């Protein structure tokens, strides 16, 4: 090849203890190329990008930029080499202005030359067709706006290679279309982009794709030469049957949960706006929506953690008002929170102890004033067997469990509690394929036992596989409730972007 590749990775290996996160990975990114890094969760994409940005140091291998070997010990080295990164979770200071976020840590000397920085930011915005107001506080921007700040922040450092880590995970379809338009202009300018994604629609817009599976590079292909199915096969290993749709569970009994006009304000923003829906016995009600559109607030209200400003809800006919999580749980309600290590588990306690979290005062787990150790241990063994939790024993500390096994501990506890209603917020987030399948099967089993289930997920596949009806959340409103069998991914995708009118037309 005549020109030097912008980035060349040779035999990169990174281990975490026994786990090999990247195993002998080699790839090239050319100048002006949109190169996609494709793989499932846990395939090693994030580790590789962290190595390229100097956040981790690889154990073996070589990285070259424009033909020069580089040692990336910190982000400072990466920036010097012209590598910039937009992180999946934004790293912004909400109280700073757009300009301050972009300029902090750049330049030299004591002086902060606001005017010069502003001129440069505006020049970058103009060059690539990005709309940004430099003096607005970042905390006031939409998620899409914050994404632009991140991108300009990287371009401001003069990067010639941009690593974008799942940039569209939080964007509406319209915003991600804009993103790809900007990417085209960056490419025309000779800037290379390494896009990390697992969304096929985006991957197909790239020039070449490198596929990772379990830390190894499966291969690099020209996108024009392959189909979506080819890439899926490369990513997953064998062709899997399309996600089976559950046999219909339209609900066999009366409404277990009925929500009427729930509204809530937080920091002057209406995070829940007049939400009403019902879930019947033996039904899984799905909630679709980009995260941050009110789902978390809905679940916090329903589980008793927060009180709504207006409206009410009832479980099995019993009105729940100004309650606490303990009161709601007493009605036979289980709650699987979205952030399992923050809300669902006590990291330093063992599995058997976490399995009784919230019920530790109940007579069932006590003998006199003391906890019933034998009962706890037996319960732990049963859960480990019943939910195939990979752990050394019921006394294993939960902090050391993988995401999937931690989730199984929570499921074991909450399924046991949920006689009537199960609230699941993003139960499959961050899990691998095997664990997702497990969660699906357990949810269906619970449904068939007659439990009513509310399931929120960002993965439409989850919802289409499990739910009979799907409600779409956008900016705190429940835009529409759709019958699974009379809707499509596209329709829900448009609603998630807030395009109600398109649907209505």
């Amino acid at each position: 090849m005549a020109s030097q590749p912008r980035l060349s990775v040779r035999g990169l290996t990174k281990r975490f203890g026994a786990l090999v996160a990247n195993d002998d990975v080699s790839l090239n990114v050319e100048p002006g190329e949109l190169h996609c890094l494709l793989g499932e969760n846990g395939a090693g994409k994030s580790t590789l990008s962290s190595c390229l940005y100097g956040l981790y140091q690889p154990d073996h291998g070589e990285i070259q930029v424009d033909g020069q070997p580089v040692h990336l010990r910190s982000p400072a080295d990466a920036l010097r080499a012209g590598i910039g990164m937009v992180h999946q979770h934004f790293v912004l200071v909400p109280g700073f202005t757009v300009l301050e976020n972009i300029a902090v840590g750049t330049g030299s000397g004591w002086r902060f030359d606001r005017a010069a920085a502003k001129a440069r930011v505006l020049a970058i915005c103009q060059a690539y067709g990005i709309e940004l107001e430099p003096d607005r506080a970042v905390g006031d921007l939409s998620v899409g706006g914050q994404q632009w700040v991140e991108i300009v922040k990287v371009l401001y450092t003069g990067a010639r290679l941009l690593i974008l880590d799942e940039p569209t995970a939080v964007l509406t379809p319209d915003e991600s279309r804009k993103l790809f338009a900007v990417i085209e202009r960056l490419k025309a300018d000779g800037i290379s982009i390494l896009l990390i994604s697992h969304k096929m629609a985006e991957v197909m817009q790239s020039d070449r794709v490198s596929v990772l599976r379990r830390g190894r590079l499966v291969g690099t292909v020209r996108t024009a030469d392959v189909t979506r199915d080819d890439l899926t096969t490369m990513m997953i290993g064998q062709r899997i049957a399309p996600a089976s749709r559950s046999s219909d569970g339209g609900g066999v009994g009366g409404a277990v949960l009925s929500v009427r006009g729930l509204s809530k304000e937080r920091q002057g923003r209406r995070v829940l706006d007049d939400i009403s829906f019902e879930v019947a016995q033996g039904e899984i009600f799905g909630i679709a929506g980009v995260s941050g559109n009110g789902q978390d607030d809905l679940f916090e209200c329903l589980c008793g953690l927060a009180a709504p400003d207006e409206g009410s809800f009832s479980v099995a006919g019993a009105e729940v008002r100004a309650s606490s999580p303990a009161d709601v749980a007493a009605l036979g309600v289980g709650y699987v929170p979205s952030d399992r290590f923050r809300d669902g588990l006590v990291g330093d306690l063992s599995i058997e102890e976490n399995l009784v979290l919230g019920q530790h005062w109940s007579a069932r787990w006590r003998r006199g004033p003391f906890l019933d150790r034998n009962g706890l241990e037996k319960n732990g063994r049963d859960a480990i067997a019943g939910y195939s939790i990979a752990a050394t024993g019921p006394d294993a500390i939960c902090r050391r469990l993988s995401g999937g096994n931690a989730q199984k501990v929570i499921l074991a506890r909450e399924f046991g509690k949920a006689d009537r209603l199960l609230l699941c917020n993003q139960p499959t987030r961050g899990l691998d394929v095997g664990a997702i399948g497990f969660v699906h099967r357990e949810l269906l089993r619970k449904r068939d036992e007659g439990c009513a289930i509310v399931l929120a997920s960002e993965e439409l596949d989850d919802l289409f596989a499990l739910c009979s009806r799907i409600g779409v959340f956008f900016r705190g409103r429940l835009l529409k409730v759709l019958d699974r069998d009379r809707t499509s991914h596209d329709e829900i995708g448009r609603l998630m972007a807030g395009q109600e009118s398109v649907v209505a037309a």
Partner: protein
Amino acid sequence: MTDFSIAEWRIERRREARPAARFIGLGAALAGAIIVCGMLFLAAGAEPLKAFASLAKGSFGSLRATGETLVKATPLIFTGLAACVAFRARIWNIGAEGQVFAGAMFAYWAQHNLGEFPALVQIPVVVMGGIAGGGLYAALAGLLKTRFSVDEVISTVMLNYIIVYVLSLLLLRGPWSEAGGFFEQTARVDRDATLPMLIAGTRLHMGFLLALAAAVLVHLILTRTPLGYEIRAAGSNLRALDVQGTNTRRLIIVVMLLSGALAGLAGVTEVYGVHYRLKAGAVAGYGYSGIIVAILGQLHPVGVVAAAILFGALLNGATLMQIETGVPSALIYAIQAILLLFFLAGWAMCNFRLRRTGRV
């Protein structure tokens, strides 16, 4: 292209310290603390070995000295346990100092107003008074935290300063001042209210047994009861407890009550077991030392008892050391802080390791 890798060393944080590493780290910390102490001896113009020797002789050299060491250890066990209970829940009760005062004052108030009764009545009253006084004063900080979100570190420190003046107010020309007395102290307490002696020839009193019983009780609470479960859980993830239905506000108050009650008992043992009158000098200083004791004891009741006896020995031996070598006994407080710093550093450094890596 040849891929050559040059070995180099890098310091990394590990996830879990291995027990061996922890042992070495703590040993190194102890050695470091001893060396610094030796330097302080030299600075005071004393021979370090001689100073250490007289420190040891003063603390364990005779039955009387050993008994005195345990007497000094008694309030430290209580305040150490107080810090242990609170810190396990990650509630930073820095107020044991003030809670010792409050316990002693409440006990004195109850016993003073009770009138003359046999020991069988007075001693339980005194003990319950200490528990109530310390517990309530600590619960005040708990209330400030849960109702007004005032950081407990700051509120407990402020309460420590406040109660010193309250006591002074009551003692100096106040209702409790000794008739005709010149010092800021109460009259001698009724003999029947004092804690009985245990071993002839020593001043070891019943308070020491109470302290050991308290350590056993705290251990049982922490490991075996639902409350202990909540305390340990709160120390790891308070939010998860909240989400799963525990009233964490109430838990914070309960922990503060328990922690303060333990500290309050230290006030009782000093007033009714050692000094037989209430004065600031009888109860000051044990709260802060108790925090060091708790951390050196790795927040474990058995460790707390061991560390408290070590500190009791230091306090007790210091007097002889000052007489024999002229090293000011105030050194002990510096040594305590140095020990704490070295242990914290040693403990933390166990979490690091040197790792040999190939060059990238």
